[in-house]
């Protein structure tokens, strides 16, 4: 995957790249998993890519959602002709 520090065929990095998302998700069959893991033992760059890809996915799992503002929710109810459910407290 990188342009340096490789003492083996870059083609193998490229070949495995397309399967890394499935690997991170645990959706890859056993043979391909073993192939990726064997490759990572020899290729620091690919090990870092897999690790940081996994971290990317985990980081976004923790991304908080901005809730719909209360006034936007009220406008939504009014637009849907649901005024009966908007009260004054």
């Amino acid at each position: 995957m990188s342009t340096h520090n490789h003492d083996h065929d870059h083609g193998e990095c490229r070949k495995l790249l397309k399967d890394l998302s499935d690997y991170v998700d645990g959706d890859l069959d056993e043979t391909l998993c073993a192939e990726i893991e064997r490759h990572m033992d020899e290729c620091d760059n690919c090990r870092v890519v897999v690790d940081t890809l996994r971290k990317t996915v985990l980081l976004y799992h923790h991304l908080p959602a901005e809730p719909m503002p209360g006034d936007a929710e009220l406008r939504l109810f009014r637009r849907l002709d649901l005024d009966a459910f908007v009260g004054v407290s």
Partner: protein
Amino acid sequence: MAGLTIDLNIYADEPALIDALLAGDKHACACMVKHHGSQMYAVALRIMGDADEAEEVVQDAFISACSKMASFEGRSKLSTWLYRITTNAALMRLRKRRNDTVSLDEPQVMDEGDLLPRQLGDWNVDPGRQALSQELLQVMEAAVETLPPSLRAAFILRDIQGLSTQEAAEALDITESALKVRLHRARLALRERLAGYLAEQSQEMAL
């Protein structure tokens, strides 16, 4: 101050709510909006990148959902159906914003060369253990906005909203394998963009 007066507990489960929606019950419609509104707003906001437009997308989506409830066949969860309508509304609006000059699917980013990872420094971050800084959250949000819309929608539904591959594919009306391709491209692009920030942070900490 005006607020909402809805009892969310009057329907025993989703099938009961759907029956009431199909019967045209306004209380059921209010429940659906109250229950799912924030999720749909979150998706619309991230696709559009603008709060006012996200609000309009959600309004359009729920108007559409309430008016065509009869077309809901119950083969997916109600939320998946709503995600589909909301995502469509958002992508349509984006297409209009671009004045129909650019297809939403082109450029999909990236030829194969663009997908190759270039940032190869390690990150000193443990997503499961540490609170994320405001700065990192902003970097993450900004990175999502740089994705082409079709990849952005796939990533938001699957990795941020947490839909399954099948649900996200249904919501986008694409096959699961197409969803996986988009997701993979989005993840690689985001990894690359976050790396610019996180690898640098890790280097600074190591000094």
